[in-house]
């Protein structure tokens, strides 16, 4: 039976992917992407969780039964990268919304296509 963290991560993943497709608003799509990224991070963190383990932040002489610190380092990197992507995507959504006065993905797509037809 997988641990709670893993189950929650999968539920978030399904909700995130579903929302990414179903909702037409660009801001919702960004939120959904953030949700997918969060579920990945949660999965990484909850893979090695055992009930009695402690955090690996003690001097080596007293260290025993610690969690694996490597996924936590990976998670740090993933968080920074996700932040950068969301910030840039948000900026672009802002610029597009100001130009087309809508955040609806389908409308923007159609307006862009109309503009490029000669």
């Amino acid at each position, binding site marked *: 039976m997988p641990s709670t963290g893993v189950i929650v991560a999968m539920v978030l993943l399904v909700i995130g992917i579903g929302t990414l497709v179903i909702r*037409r608003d660009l801001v919702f799509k960004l939120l959904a992407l953030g949700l997918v990224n969060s579920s990945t991070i949660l999965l990484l963190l909850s893979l*090695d969780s055992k009930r009695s383990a402690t*955090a*690996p*932040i*003690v*001097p080596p002489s007293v260290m025993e039964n610690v969690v*694996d610190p490597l996924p936590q380092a990976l998670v740090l990197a993933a968080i920074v990268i996700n932040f950068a*992507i969301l910030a840039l995507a948000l900026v672009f959504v802002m610029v597009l919304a100001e130009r087309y006065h809508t955040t609806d993905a389908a409308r923007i797509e159609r307006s862009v296509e109309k503009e490029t037809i000669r």
Partner: protein
Amino acid sequence: MTRRPKLTTILAVALACGIGGLLLWSLPEASQGGAVAVERVRELVASTGASNAVCSIVVGARLLDTLFEVLVFSVAVLGVRLTLGRGDGGAKEGAIAWSSASIAVSGIAESDVVRRSAYLLFPLVSILGIYLAVFGHVSPGGGFGGGVVLASGFLLVAVSLGAERVSRRFRESVLERIEWSTVAAILVFAGVSWAVQGLPRSGWISPGEPGTLAGSGTLMTYNLLIAVKVFLGSWVIVHLFVEHRGEI
């Protein structure tokens, strides 16, 4: 207006559930770890002299990843500046024009309580940020966390006292130069320390007793540099947003 048929909805939900279910079904019961992890973590901590194992990994063993992470952050700041800022001359005909704020930047703190709280909290937040960066190798923290906390302190001041007051003290171009000099410094420092020590094993400045402030060899330097970089980058992003929109 074309109506998106329900086919996409059904397809999306079905496929997403399929992926989630497959993953759940295939996750292994037992995980690696246990005794093996402790041995490796002990060796790691002893070699780097920092008692925070995650920090030794982030800025020690997997420094290469962290270098590129810092670059990801810098490129993001560069991108925000490119799109929202004065422009680089890259815009050709048909470009989406950058529109300046039509509302004057104003401080929204009319009440005394908010203003005084901001004055009170700002030094505390800054100290917390510096503590996280400096002591990152001993207790939970590190360069990224410290930098973000520092930036949030400045954001607090900007929200309650008006962004203009803060930005008057920093010139944009100077900030950009300091930021990229920090990146260059991190790159050069990493390159030099790798070349000097001939790659694996020992730290460049020899690691001392784990758990002490000065015992971490090069890790503290990296934490400080990264904190400065993240702080400047976050502030630039926030400042550009404020300038573009008019107020927070």
